Structure formats: C-alpha cells, structure tokens
C-alpha cells in the first residue's frame, strides 16, 4: 500500500455535545508535527477525542493513515495517546504500565520485555521498571508515557497538552525528547497546545479552532504570519 499523503482526514465531521455544535473538516500532512490551538472551549479536546475515538462523530468520516476509523474502537485505531495527566495506572509499576501498551492482557514475550527496557533507556529512565508511578516526578511520568508510545509504534501520536502540568524549565527538555522520537520514527504528531512559544518551536503545521470549527489550517510559516484573524493574532501575541 502506498503511504498516503495525508495522515489524517476529517470529512464534514459533525457532532453535538450538550448545546455546543462541532464541525470539523481538514487534511493533515503525514510525518508532520501539527499543533492544535485555540481558546478554552473552542473544541481542541473534542477534536482530539474524535481522533482518539472517545467521542464518535454523528455524521461525516474520519480517516487516519488512509483507513476509515469513524466507527472503530479507540484501541483499534492507529494512534497512541499522551494525556496531560493520569497517563499511568497508579497501582501498577512502570514495566506493567508500558507492557499494557504492547499487550492489553499483559501476555508478554521475552522480546517484549527487552523492548520495554530499551524504550525506558531511550527516554532516559533506564532501570525504572519496578518503580511505582507515585514515586516519579511529573516529568518522569510523562517520559514513561512517551516510552509507552514508542513501544506501541503507531503512525499517529496524539498529545493533549502533554507539558501543561510541568514546570517551565522541564518543558523544553520534554519538547526536545518529543522531537527526537518524531525524527526517529517518522510518525505524525498532533499536539494540543496553549503555549505560542511551544508551537513556534516544535510545529510544522498549525490549526486554530474557534467555536467548534477549524478557522485556520496552514503550514507553520504561513500560520504564524496570518494577520487576518483577530483570535489567532491574539493567541500568538500572548
């Protein structure tokens, strides 16, 4: 199968949650780091939930890596996820938490065990296998979530404000780690972000959402240069 040009396509996707209407339509390039921005309540989380499969579209189609996933259960979609927090089951150790990413019933081969250890090495947490999540710092827990995304090896990585709960000093290091992973695997990264500096630093492509719609979608240079949209201008200045 030919690698499709667009990692993600949303075709006239419609959804209503409570009183709010959402209408998404977009094509996002393969192998890019895509930043999703917008004010609170603009629909960033819903956008991500639709891609992840936590919310289901009432109409329209969603294609990820060329596959129609509109009705597909979250785990069967070709995506990995990193949330802002609660990325790890707090009562299970680091090894088990990552192992669940390989096999959800925890049936692991010896190769799998080696994969887990090497993924921890890659995120700078070698030897953390038997530690419990509660004994790790917030940054270390996010690194474990990255390690799990590595072993899952899906073409699309979805991140919901992954660094928002971290100290500003930690964010740069984590963003660098994310970019390293991205370059190594060549995956497509969709990251929801509140931080204009972060967007400028890591993104290749920008989305700006307002009132449940995508109002700007452009490559990052064009995205940062757009002056015709007051909401976006305000976001970039903040």
């Amino acid at each position, binding site marked *: 199968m030919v690698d499709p040009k667009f990692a993600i396509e949303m075709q006239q996707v419609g959804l*209503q949650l409570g009183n709010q209407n959402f209408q998404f339509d977009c094509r996002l390039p393969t192998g890019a780091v895509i930043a999703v921005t917008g004010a609170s309540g603009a629909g960033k989380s819903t956008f991500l939930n639709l891609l992840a*499969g*936590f919310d289901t579209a009432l109409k329209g189609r969603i294609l990820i890596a060329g596959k129609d996933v509109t009705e597909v*259960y*979250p785990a*069967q979609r070709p995506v990995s996820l990193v949330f802002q927090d609660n990325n790890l*089951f707090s009562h299970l150790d680091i090894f088990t938490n990552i192992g*669940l990413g390989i096999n959800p*019933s925890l049936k692991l081969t010896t190769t799998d065990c080696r994969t887990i250890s090497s993924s921890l090495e890659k995120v700078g947490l070698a030897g953390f296998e038997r530690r419990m999540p509660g004994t790790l710092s917030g940054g270390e827990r996010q690194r474990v979530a990255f390690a799990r995304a590595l072993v899952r090896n899906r073409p699309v990585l979805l991140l919901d404000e992954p660094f928002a709960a971290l100290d500003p000093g930690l964010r740069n290091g984590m963003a660098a780690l994310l970019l390293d992973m991205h370059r190594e695997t060549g995956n497509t990264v969709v990251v929801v972000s509140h931080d204009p500096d972060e967007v400028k630093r890591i993104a290749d492509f920008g989305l700006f959402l307002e009132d449940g719609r995508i109002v700007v979608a452009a490559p990052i240079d064009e995205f940062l240069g757009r002056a015709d949209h007051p909401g976006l201008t305000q976001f970039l200045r903040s």
Partner: protein
Amino acid sequence: MLLTKAEMRRAMLGGAASLAGIIAFVGLAVLALLLSSGGSSILATVFEPYILRILRFTLLQAVLSTALSIVFAIPVAQALARQRHFPGRIWIIRLMAVPMGLPVLIGALGLIGIWGRQGIMNSALLKFGLAEPVSIYGLSGILLAHVFFNMPLAARLMLAALERVPSEYWLMASGLGMRPLSTFRFIEWPVLRSVIPGIAGLIFMLCATSFTLVLTLGGGPAATTVEVAIYQSLRFDFDPGRAVTLSLLQIVLTSMILGALSLLPAPKDEGMTVGKPVRRPDGRLPGARLVDGGVLLLATLFLALPLMSVVLAGLRSDLMKLLREPIFWQSAATSLAISISAAALALLISMTLVSARRTALLRGSGAFGRRFLFAAMGGASSLVLLVPTIVLATGWFIALRNLGNASAVAPVLIVAINALMSLPFVMRVLEPAFIVHKHRTQKLAASLGVTGWARLRLIDTPALFKPMLTAFSFAMALSLGDLGAVALFGSDSFVTLPWLVYSRMGSYRTNDADGLALILGVVCLLLTIAGTMGPARREVAVHG
C-alpha cells in the same frame, strides 16, 4: 466509544436485571398489601382513633427528637470547631461516629444501663432525694435514645460545615474584636443555617422510621410508632388488616418526607482536609475554653457512659456459659451467613447499577430512554427508604401466608431485605469511587484496549478493592445488627443474634442479653473500623 459494544451490552443487561429484581421484590410486597386490603377498607380504618393516635405519636416524637438533636449538636460542633488543639480531640470526634456503627439494640441496652430504673443516673438522683425523675421508657426514653444516636451525626455534619469556612474569617473576626456572640451571629450561624435544614430532614426521616428503639423503649398504646404498630398487629394481635393499613400509611408518610427532603440541600461531610491549618484565636479566650470544655465533657459523658455500661454489663455476665450454649453458636452462624450473603448481594446489585448508570450516561447525549434508565436505577437503589424494611417484610409475610409455609423461605427474604436496606449506603460509597476511578482510567484503558477480563483483573479490582471492602463491611455490620426484618420472620428454629438479645431481654434473662450485646457490638464496631480504613469514609454513606 469508551466501551466496546460487548461491554456496553453487558453493563446495561446487568443493570437492567438488578433494576428488575429490585422492582419485582418491592413491587410484589406492595401488591400483596394492596390486594389484601381491598381498597375501601383502608379509608374506613385509617381514621380509627387508634391509628390516628399512632400517627400523631410517630410525628410528635420525630419532630421532638429532631429538634433536640439539632439544639444539642450546635454547641458541641461549635466547641469542637473552636478548640482545635487539646489532647483527645480526635477521639471525641471518633466517639461521635460510634453510635452510627453500633446496632441500635445495643445502644438501647447501654442507655437502659445508665438511665434505667437501676441505672447510675436515677440512683444518683435518688440520693439527692428525687424519685426517678428520668424514665427510659415511653416518650422521654425514645427521645433520649434518638438524641443519643442522632446528635453526634448532626454535630459531625455541622463541624464539617464550620471547617469549610475560610480560615481568614476567624482571624478577621478576632482582629475586629468580635465577641463570641457576634462571631456566632455573623459567621457561625449563617453557615449552620444553610446546613441545618438538610441535617434536620435526614434525622426526621431516621426518627420517623425508627423501629428497634421504639420497640424496646416504647410500646404500649401511648408510645407506639407506625412501624412498631405494624409489628404488633402481625405478631401479637393477629390483625393483618390493620398491619396492611398501617403499612400503606407508612409508605404515604415516607413518600411525603422524602418529597420534602428532596427540596432541601443534602448535607455534605467533607471538611477542609487540605490547605492551611485553621487557627481560632477566639478559642483561646478563658471564657470560651471553660464553656467549650464543659460542653465537650458533658457530650463525651453522654455518649461514652452507655457504651461503657454495655462493656461492663457484658463483662459481668457469664460469658463462658453463653459461649457453651448451642443456641449462641447456632444464632451466630445464622447471623453470619445472613449478613455475608446480604452484603455480597448488595455489593453485586450496586456494582451492576453503578456501571450501568455510568454506561447509560456515556452513550447517548440526548436519548430520553437512557436518561430515564439512569434515574430509575438511582431511584431503585433508594427504594427501601420509601418502603421501609418492616413494610417490605409485612408485604411478603402477607403474600406468603396465603401460599402456606413462610418459614422455609424466611432466610432468603431476610437476606434480600437486608441487602436492599444497605443498598443506598453501599451505592453512596461505591458510586463516587467508581466515577473517580473511571475518570482516571477509562480513556487510557480504551486507548490501550485493556478490556473485559484483563481490565477487571489489572485495573478495576485493584483500584476499587478498598471502597468495595468498605461497602461490604458496612453492609455486613448493618445486616448483623438488624432486628427489623427478623422480628416478623423469626421463630424458635430461626434465630439471629439481635433476635436472641431481644428475646433474652424480654424474658428477664438480662444478664445473657448483656453478654450477647457486648459480643455483637464488638463485632459490628470492628467491621465498621475495618470498613473506614479505606479511602471512602462511612459518613458519606449515612448522609442522605
């Protein structure tokens, strides 16, 4: 799509089965009552002077019990909130949780030990030349016992409300030089006023449906509530017609109280557990210390003396002889089997209801049917508040009387009734824990595909083990101490521990009753302590 289709179907089917089971069990009992009453006779009998007198007494004692509990709870809560640091403060707060975990019958025995004819209160008053001014039997005794059980509940809820006040308020009050009366008027009373209606409604409900206390301390035509009158009609007067009328009357009464309660704000129990420590400069004034110390001393004595009386009387009885009696072991085994089955059943039903409610909410955003199911499942878990245990038991008693031998199925019925009885509390422990757990893990589990058996084993069981243990031990303690359901179905061949205590009390083998009470009380308290070691606190369960 946070659940697979199979998971959704399983959750909804489980919840629907539980819902149908509850409705069928309660519905059949009510149907039996309605059918045997024949409609027209109710209107004729409901205005009999006897029934009107009972209704009047039920409401009167409930109003007075509620008022007294609230009035006495205010200074206790105030003193505890004002005095943050003194040795034993936490133990007084723990002591106030004890009446909630104690079987009502045991509490009644302790109160008789202190306030009864031979109790230390009357002996002391006799020495001062007063002849038995306090009677533990009749209205005064019922009020005393209701205050014993409900004042601590009210005080704990009020204390929680006072601890939610921002700590700056107290500093500001003392900075402004407010005297205790002004502090009460401008800070404490506005807070208390907002929680008292909810607390009062809850206590009124508990007192209006109180059975065991009225049975042991009241009785006789002058001091009988609707619930006790139902029991007497069936067991002593063999007048099922009147029992039916009274049962239906009780349903009308509880539905009116519940209707009124739903308009009141529900009391919350969480105080400020995190954040800055509260400082109360006004508590350091010598006058405040003296008054608070006196109030707390009196409250502690009031609560602790009956408990000590249970312990001392129990130790004085011939425990060795009791332990050699086969009837003790027989009734203990019966009680244990019933309480374990009831707790397991309550846990099973509430887990299916909780997960079906969660699933119903997840699915449709607007589907009316699902919202209806959601509400119905929540309401069903509290159906026993509307149809109290005695009424349920009466319904089944009447239904089975027409079919023949009731004693064969009595254990099953008591298990079902006890399970229903603990359901509102079990739900209140499990549902918040379940929601928090799902909130933390559902997206993660769905994105990793941890479903079905693997999720149950790896994710749900470890995380929910503690709240489930809390709920289980709580339901077990409730069932172990229950006298209501067994009172109608108990016989010489079918005896539970509370029933044994009660019958030994009645037959003047009070020494035996004391010994048994001590054993039962200790078991129930240990269960409660085991339960409250979990994260969910049991007061959460008690607050309606």
